[in-house]
């Protein structure tokens, strides 16, 4: 089992898909000759040629809009938005067509498309390169929104996303791109989209997170165990649309306490959704107020101020202590 970074794992998944299915094509800015600004598509142009790995001009709406036509025609386009902060240029195509074509034509035309984009802070980048706005896609009916957290699940979920008959927004935690290595099997594997993962079982408090927040959340759980003797259950959502309510609710029924962690803004974020589901369906089990540890509803600062801005394990553990103290 090779041990790889998430960048390499994504690269493997793309290569596997390109190899297995002639209908898979990649489109994006600088993904060919350059191998992608994060090197996720490195080597793919060479192996698969310019008809499969397509460098485009700087025009996000065109990338997504053309991919709609390709998908309707029968291809399986995998688009890269260079940063999630520049995917808004294509949002009208996503909301207006990617998410709608199957429904509009009652299944006559479908959009088996993946739109990959790196999101999130922590890499000392300039403005527009650090935001997390997954909730916008989760709020858009007709899309699935997958957010991997480690190399192995990134590879498996990207494969599932490409195989999925419907459009998937594949939101990649760029801070995790090279942060860790993980062993991946020789053979490609898939993971079901819509299933959360209980990363660590626990009985006292449930910590729900995803993407790059997995690491500080697990650290927080370790701190809580070490310093407070608290048994925290850590859930990694992996997909926020659909969202695996069952796993969350089962955990709350056990722990009675909820902390949700994400990088995106708080108002109408994924944390709100998790909280609402619990308040709808497991309120009688809640023994304390829920807590959201998120970025605040202000603009993501330029990078010298980002360390304080982004939730870290301390802040997550503190949130858990609050709800445990209630």
């Amino acid at each position, binding site marked *: 089992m090779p041990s790889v970074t998430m960048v390499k794992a994504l690269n493997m998944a793309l290569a596997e898909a390109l190899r297995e299915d002639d209908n898979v*094509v990649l489109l994006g800015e600088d993904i060919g000759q350059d191998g992608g600004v994060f090197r996720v598509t490195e080597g793919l142009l060479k192996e698969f040629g310019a*008809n499969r790995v397509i460098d*485009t*001009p700087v*025009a996000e*709406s*065109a990338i*997504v*809009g*053309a*991919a*709609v*036509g*390709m*998908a*309707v*025609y*029968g*291809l399986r*386009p995998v688009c890269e938005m260079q940063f999630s902060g520049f995917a808004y240029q294509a949002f*009208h*195509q996503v909301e*207006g*067509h990617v998410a709608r074509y*199957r*429904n*509009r*034509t*009652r*299944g*006559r*035309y*479908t959009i088996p498309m993946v739109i990959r984009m790196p999101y999130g802070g922590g890499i000392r980048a300039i403005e527009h390169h650090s935001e997390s706005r997954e909730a916008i896609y989760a709020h858009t*009916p*007709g899309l*699935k929104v997958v957010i991997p957290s480690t190399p192995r699940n990134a590879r498996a979920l990207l494969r599932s996303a490409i195989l999925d*008959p*419907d459009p998937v927004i594949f939101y990649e935690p760029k801070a995790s791109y090279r942060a860790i290595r993980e062993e991946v099997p020789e053979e490609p594997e898939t993971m079901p989209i*819509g299933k959360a993962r209980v990363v660590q079982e626990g009985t006292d408090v449930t910590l729900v997170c995803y993407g790059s927040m997995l690491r500080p959340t697990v650290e927080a759980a370790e701190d809580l165990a070490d310093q407070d003797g608290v048994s925290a259950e850590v859930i990694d959502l992996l997909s926020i649309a*659909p*969202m695996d*309510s*069952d796993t969350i609710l089962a955990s709350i029924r056990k722990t009675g306490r909820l902390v949700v962690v994400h990088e995106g803004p708080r108002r109408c974020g994924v944390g709100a959704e998790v909280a609402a589901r619990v308040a709808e369906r497991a309120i009688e089990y809640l023994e304390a107020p829920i807590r959201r540890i998120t970025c605040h509803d202000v603009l993501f600062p330029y990078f010298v101020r980002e360390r304080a801005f982004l939730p870290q394990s301390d802040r997550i553990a503190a949130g858990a202590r609050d709800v445990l103290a209630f």
Partner: protein
Amino acid sequence: MPRRLIDIEPKVEFLSILNEHAEVDQTLAPELDGDVLTRMFTWMLTTRRLDERLINMQRQGRIGTYGPTRGQEAVSVGSAFALRPDDWTAQAFRETGLMLARGWALETPMFFWGGFEEGNAVPDSVNDLPISVPVASQTLHGVGIAWAMKLKGKDTVCITYTGDGGTSEGDFHEAMNFAGVYQLPVIFMVQNNQFAISCPRSKQTRSATLAQKALAYGFDGIQVDGNDILAVYVATREAVDKARQGGGPTLIEAVTYRLSVHTTADDPTKYRSADEVKAWEKRDPLIRFRKYVKDRGVLDDQTIQGIEDDIQQKIKAAVERYESYNDADPLDCFRYIFAELPPELQQQKEEFAAAVKEEGLDRHPPR
């Protein structure tokens, strides 16, 4: 020479064959046999009559807001005739003539404007996209389809439609640019009907023609008299043939006029004069083409009357099919959203089903 004019390539042409007095330039007229001319005429007339019926149906509340196509039949029918069945099309929302000539059912527009997703029922054998409402967004889909064709080594083409207003949207620009860069087999048909709702062509853009916008992308542009079905046919045919042979995209500006309202919710007296409309009524594409087919001895008044009767029959039957359709299950919104319904939507579906049943809306008659 340090200060000099740059020679701009390619050149932009203007084409007219059958003018408003039904005079024809024989050197330019395409060789079309009587059968084709009859079918062209029949589809133009069908489009006109269906349009009239749809306006009536809107007045009677049998459909919702409707966007008429009166005066623009030559563009959509003429261009449809330049295509092969295995070519693809990406329409905007004023291409009823295209849909009909390509084989869509006559009742489908009734369903669309009547508020049914069934109004996007592309016939099985037809490669067309349904109506696209966000202005110019579909030009990119046409580009993607043409691109897929090229990648797959097909000799088919895709034609996209948009309006004069549509040329102002960023999507139009990005579509044109990609088409040029990848030399795609795509035709951009711009129906310049002089208005984008109330915005006249002169205020939509400062360029003298829309055709010359092709120069920004390094490919051919041509302006045609859009009320002249022969010119539309010839220009489209040339563009299609060129695209089929790997010659890349073409922009066609079809100069026409929206003789009716923008939609039935619109009051055009607010922004244009009756005189202007009257002047354009004289250039009605149907008048001149009727005269042309008669002059050529293809049809006479009697055969035309036969066609009229047949059209009315067909429209009547279509209206009946539309009106007798009663299957508007509100739960459909959960049926086509994904190939497989995820658990949380399954649960919402059950909640919704229970609610509409409770509320007596599950058997809600469509109209």
